[in-house]
């Protein structure tokens, strides 16, 4: 190691002396948003080839990789408009509701539902695998794309928090939900879905279904969780349906068909039943109760009928009897037929407590089921369900945050507050410890930070920040300051955002940064342009002074061209220093000098001499430029055709020369960068001109 950290350095030698590094091994710096860049130094041996590296670390933002980064970005983009729409509608409603709150209440439910549905759609299409419209007799469950836990969780919240219109049908909605998402629980625990799939994979090898215990087992399970279509379809694969068997097994077949028929006629309390779905739909409770009692009566009747004795196939008899027990809501049968507490819970909702409404009773039911089917590591969706049923908003939020990350929390908070005063006060109460913002705002800020950390998503962060009443604009300003200014498109985008949110100071600071960047990097025109846009008079004045200084050196035509444009840019209207005026006059003078060309154009020469006089008379023309100006005009002073300067003008210029000579004695005099004989040449030319002018006049 050629260098060691000295005592004066930032590095403190370690007290324990066993080979600890003397320099910091790490250095950290936040990038935009929630990503941290960590420099890892390997100073242990300088001869070492490796020089260390920089890694980017992201604070874990939830999710278990179920959804890829690209998918998250798509979700992020697609959810902007539902979110913004919701905020708009809410804002316009709150301005109305001051006058008359009640009529808009229903509207509030409606737009929450619109929002929830919009978000739900962008989380993927619902493809239920428990689909009745399966033509292939060998397929009981369609192999569809794996649904995501994210969508499952969203639908749960929609179901419990937003969709208040169908609260009476909640049990059936839960049944549907489980049918869609049961397979998600397969990784941790067995599921009915897995059972059916396993059977489907082997069933072609089974010669006589009804002899196989697995057959009955799967039907029981499917029936227990309410997958009536699958249960019936499988029942009809029973051997007694085969034409050659029908005559021998008439009674047996009759019993199978009777059970299948009872299953298909099961009353269900729900708003509608999609075509192909089995059961009979009742919207109102009294109708349902009547039908339910009747249906139950039919089952009891069948259960106790005499035909069972004539059924000679033992497995069929046993199997069908078990199915009837499930239909009758026998707790032990349900317990045996389901694989986890959630399925058990659903089976109870279907067969034992179809009228369960209210979160409290559902919560109690869930707790009972958990006791009956405990599990060591519950699935994340189960935790959310328990949180919802237990009316524990904090748990739901924490689970959403832990399992699905900031996107979920920022968007789901909208659902949690619908119609719940308790959740409302929890999420909207401003907390001193959070810097006087609410939990809702905190989570929006956190999500905006995540968006900010990626070049492709930072542009949508402002939508969320603008919904944060207290800290949103502060964070937005910082975010905008952290965008690179050297790229024009990005800069314009940045300024557009500033304009949209009235961030004038931020906008001018950004333009200032851009101006300085371009000025320093040799693009002087862009530099001046952006500094002017920023109205940065301070820097513009300094630039004018700098130009002044370069004018002092008698400039070649080449460099004149270069800064002639700059003077044009330094618009004389926004002129703060007299300097600009001088620069403009000087430019005019230089231009007319160039137009003289070969020395024969009298008119151009006269124009140039007029410009010179304007400059020399002007008090804002700094003294140090007098001699360079006159030196540049030597050609004019020695004009061949006629003297261009009048006697009085010549005298004025001679006086200026005199003034210059005495100024040379002052300590602050700036010596122009001119040949030594310049002064004499000018003096001689002026004297000659004076003589000629006197003669002429």
């Amino acid at each position: 190691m050629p260098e060691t950290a000295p005592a004066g350095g930032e590095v403190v030698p370690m007290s324990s002396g066993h080979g600890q590094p003397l320099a910091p091994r790490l250095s950290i710096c936040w990038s935009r948003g929630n990503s941290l860049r960590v420099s890892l130094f390997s100073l242990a041996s300088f001869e070492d080839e490796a020089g260390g590296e920089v890694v980017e670390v992201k604070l874990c933002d939830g999710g278990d990789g179920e959804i890829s980064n690209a998918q998250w970005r798509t979700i992020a983009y697609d959810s902007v408009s539902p979110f913004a729409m919701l905020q708009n509608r809410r804002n316009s409603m709150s301005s109305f509701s001051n006058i008359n709150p009640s009529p808009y209440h229903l509207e509030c439910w409606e737009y929450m539902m619109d929002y929830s549905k919009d978000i739900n759609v962008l989380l993927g299409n619902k493809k239920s695998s428990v689909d009745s419209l399966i033509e292939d007799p060998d397929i009981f469950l369609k192999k569809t794309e794996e649904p995501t836990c994210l969508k499952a969780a969203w639908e749960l919240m929609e179901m419990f928090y937003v969709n208040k219109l169908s609260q009476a049908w909640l049990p059936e909605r839960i049944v549907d939900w489980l049918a869609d998402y049961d397979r998600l629980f397969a990784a941790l625990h067995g599921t009915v879905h897995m059972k059916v799939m396993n059977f489907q994979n082997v069933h072609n090898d089974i010669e006589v279904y009804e002899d196989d215990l697995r057959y009955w087992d799967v039907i029981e399970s499917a029936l227990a969780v309410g997958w009536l279509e699958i249960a019936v379809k499988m029942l009809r694969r029973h051997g007694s349906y085969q034409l050659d068997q029908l005559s021998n097994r008439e009674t047996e077949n009759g019993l199978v068909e009777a059970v299948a028929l009872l299953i298909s006629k099961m009353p269900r309390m729900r708003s509608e039943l999609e075509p192909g779905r089995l059961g009979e739909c009742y919207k109102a409770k009294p109708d349902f109760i009547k039908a339910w009692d009747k249906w139950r009566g039919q089952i009891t009747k069948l259960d106790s009928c005499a035909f069972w004795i004539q059924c000679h196939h033992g497995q069929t008899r046993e199997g069908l009897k078990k199915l009837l027990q499930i239909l009758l809501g026998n707790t032990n049968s349900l317990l045996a037929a389901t694989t986890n507490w959630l399925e058990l819970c659903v089976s109870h909702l279907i067969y034992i407590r179809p009228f369960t409404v209210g979160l409290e009773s559902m919560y109690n039911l869930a707790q009972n089921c958990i006791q009956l089917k405990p599990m060591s590591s519950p699935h994340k969706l189960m935790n959310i369900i328990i949180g919802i049923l237990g009316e524990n908003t904090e748990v739901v939020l924490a689970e959403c945050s832990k399992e699905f990350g900031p996107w979920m929390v920022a968007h789901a908070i909208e659902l949690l507050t619908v119609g719940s005063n308790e959740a409302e006060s929890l999420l909207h109460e401003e907390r001193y410890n959070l810097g006087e913002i609410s939990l809702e705002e905190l989570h929006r800020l956190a999500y905006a930070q995540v968006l900010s950390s990626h070049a492709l998503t930072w542009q949508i962060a402002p939508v969320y920040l603008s919904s944060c009443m207290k800290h949103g604009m502060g964070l937005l300003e910082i975010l905008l300051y952290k965008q690179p200014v050297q790229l024009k498109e990005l800069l314009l985008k940045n300024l557009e955002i500033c304009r949209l949110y009235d961030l004038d100071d931020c906008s001018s600071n950004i333009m200032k940064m851009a101006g300085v960047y371009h000025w320093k990097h040799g693009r002087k025109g862009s530099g001046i342009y952006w500094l002017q846009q920023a109205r940065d008079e301070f820097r513009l004045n300094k630039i004018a002074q700098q130009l002044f200084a370069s004018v002092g050196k008698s400039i070649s035509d080449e460099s004149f061209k270069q800064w002639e444009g700059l003077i044009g840019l330094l618009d004389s209207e926004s002129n703060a220093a007299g300097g600009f005026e001088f620069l403009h006059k000087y430019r005019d003078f230089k231009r007319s000098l160039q137009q003289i060309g070969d020395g024969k154009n009298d008119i151009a020469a006269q124009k140039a001499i007029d410009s010179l006089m304007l400059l020399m008379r002007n008090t804002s023309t700094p003294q140090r430029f007098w001699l360079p100006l006159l030196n540049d005009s030597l050609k004019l002073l020695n004009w061949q055709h006629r003297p261009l300067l009048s006697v009085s003008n010549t005298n004025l210029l001679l006086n200026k020369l005199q003034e210059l000579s005495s100024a040379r004695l002052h300590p602050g005099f700036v010596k122009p960068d001119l040949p030594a004989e310049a002064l004499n040449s000018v003096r001689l030319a002026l004297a000659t001109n004076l003589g000629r002018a006197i003669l002429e006049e």
Partner: protein
Amino acid sequence: MDCKTYKSVLKLDKGTACTAWNYCGQRLAAGTVDGTLAVFDSTDHASSSFRCSSRVKVHKAGILKVVWVPPEYGDAVACIFYDGGFSIWEEAGEDSHSVQWKLCEFFNRGSSKVLDIQFGVSPTSLKMVSTYSDGYIQVYELSNPLELKNWQLQAEFQNVIDSISTFRKASCLSASISWNPMRGGQELSFIMGFNSDTPQLNSSKVWEFDGAHQRWLPVAELALPEERGDRVYSAAWAPNIGRPYELIAVATERGIAIWHIGLNPDLDGRLPMERVALLSGHEGEVWQMEWDMSGMTLATTGSDGVVRFWQSNSNGVWQGQATFVHTS
């Protein structure tokens, strides 16, 4: 929770001792032990691949620390050297072809070594605070916003509340400065703490510029009375996007203290303050603390080679949120 999602961004030159990212995270300045400054640029705004755009030998001694100058003043860095001096280098050119890194100014304060430098931006000027091994703080002001070579010494003082005492023989190992990161309106202020053998100098003090009298005043001392002599290893002032108080982290041997500082001074000119947490978790000293852009997460690292992330929960309780340990 361990922080596992990470990816490699770039490889550093061998002998690299320090790095600093610019305001937008698109440029990295890296200093080596042989005095070379390497600058890495992102090849494309949307991607995160970087290549070295410049390597300049800036000094005979090694570079201990690199600090970027705020972007309103160009693309420039201050390099602190092992030999105790520091210099300011800037990327500039008369036209776009001649752009290169150039020395603007070299600072050397004789026998006392510079320990830390930080820049503060006010609406009208750029200020630079430098601290030295003899316990002194200097505040410079840039006279021409377009020239990084003309610095005027505006003030020189020691990190003590009572301005009468001076400590001539202080020996400081390290110092930590952190400006109040917010732009605009308010008076400039920064926090300053020392790791020295002189207890009075150590504790972190908030210094505020008194524009009316053109002087710097200590307005708060961030240490409990019995802990005032504790050596300060690091201090970090959080961005304030709207809180009714400022948030400052100070690391001493006792751990990382989180302070709430009131925005308005009381009658005797001091800012009300409260220590809301004392966090422990790092083994050994905490060398660096960085607040994220919202001031909600504090990242820290130190001699144990671990990066820790700290956040306050919704009840205001600060706790470790995640850790990152690099395993190559």
